[in-house]
């Protein structure tokens, strides 16, 4: 009986993380192939931070900061960025978001306007940290650069967070049996 429970739990853990892994692959493909098509005056959304926020709000602090680190590192490698910058900024963002994690209100938060607001906050903090490292070696003014690109990226990413919430609405929900 006990072994049956362990097997079923293990099965469930695998399915969820497998799903996250698949989503990361999908976002990677989108990032590599289609992101330029969605660029508006060189500003693109950061879809990876949305999945970091999602994992943090669904799984908790530890899972969130680990996901932030791994996804950030992964993004640093595939985007030829300074290795560690995305890992650093996404880990911090995940840590901040983890304070909004409530075990008994997971669905309520992830399916409502709270998700949009938390995504906005997470992206804002992520961009502050990230762009700090980004323009560290240049002579540009951080505030001017952040107001131009940081806020724009935050707003654009929040638009995609809105799409995530809309996707979960009952009238638009697509049931996937895994």
């Amino acid at each position: 009986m006990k072994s049956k429970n362990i097997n079923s739990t293990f099965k469930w853990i695998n399915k969820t993380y497998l799903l996250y892994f698949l989503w990361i692959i999908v976002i990677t493909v989108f990032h590599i192939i289609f992101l330029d098509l969605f660029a508006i005056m060189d500003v693109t959304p950061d879809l990876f931070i949305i999945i970091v926020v999602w994992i943090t709000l669904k799984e908790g602090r530890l899972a969130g900061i680990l996901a932030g680190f791994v996804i950030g590192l992964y993004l640093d490698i595939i985007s030829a960025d300074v290795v560690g910058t995305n890992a650093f900024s996404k880990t911090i963002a995940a840590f901040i978001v983890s304070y909004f994690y409530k075990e008994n209100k997971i669905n309520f938060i992830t399916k409502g306007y709270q998700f949009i607001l938390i995504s906005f906050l997470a992206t804002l903090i992520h961009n502050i940290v990230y762009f700090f490292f980004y323009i560290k070696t240049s002579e540009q003014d951080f505030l001017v650069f952040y107001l131009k690109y940081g806020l724009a990226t935050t707003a654009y990413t929040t638009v995609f967070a809105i799409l995530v919430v809309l996707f979960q609405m009952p009238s638009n929900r697509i049931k996937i049996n895994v």
Partner: protein
Amino acid sequence: MYKLLKLFNDFKDYFIFLILIIVSLSLISINSKQEIGGFRAVIIGGVGYIQKLFSWIPNQDALRNSNKTLIELNIQLSKEVAMMRKALHENNELRSMLNIVSNSQYKLIPCDVTSKRSIQMRNFATINKGTADSIQVGMSVCSEAGLVGIITSASEHFAMVELLNNRNIKIPVVSLETRLDGILKWEGDEYLYMQNISKSSKINVGEIITTSLFSSKYPNNITVGKIVKVAEEPGSYFSKIYVEPACRFFNFSQLFVINYVPNPEELGLLKEFENEMIMIENAKKDRQKSKKNNSQDNSSDSKK
């Protein structure tokens, strides 16, 4: 030990967070390491390959920016090409001018054309050299191709050149091969015309025409043009010789002033002789007129 483990267990999230932050910062600091660069090269190659597979998907924004950049670059390059063409033309002109300076028997004063104008079928060019540069009225002007005109007036720093395409131009010329002398005139079109060549004289198309020794204004042996057509004029003893000017009318920006002025004593003698001939001619005409009048008076008297 138990307390330490309990502490770690209670705050494991914070400890792991701290460890990950330290690892991230360490990675940032060792970013320039060769091993990471090598690994990244493989990843970038893979990503580049995937992007290349989907490069057929059109990107409107990128295309628009690319078009805008290309248009700007095109305009800039067109300007540069125009400047280079002008420089090449000038270069070729100057090279041929250098040749003529070294081969000329006369001293040449180079100058630039500052303006060109046409007043009542009389065509002039203004050059940027004047009396301060030893320019005098009566000096001939030529280009690297041939004779262009003559200085008609000069100020301290500028001079006016009366060009060949002027109605009062009369240049004594000679054909180089057949050595036939004639007078070159302009009749309003693109050619000059060599006159006083009888139909019996043999003159060839393609012959070069130069100024002759008979000229008192122009130095001799300066190329003027080339015969392009020989036509027979009905009711005349002379042929009509079409001469293409060596230097195209108005097609020059740099010229040379030939530092040669006819000897004033020679000019004075010529003028004196001309005046004498005119006086003799006039006297002849007067005598003929008076004779005629006398004969008319006699006939009217006899009728009476």
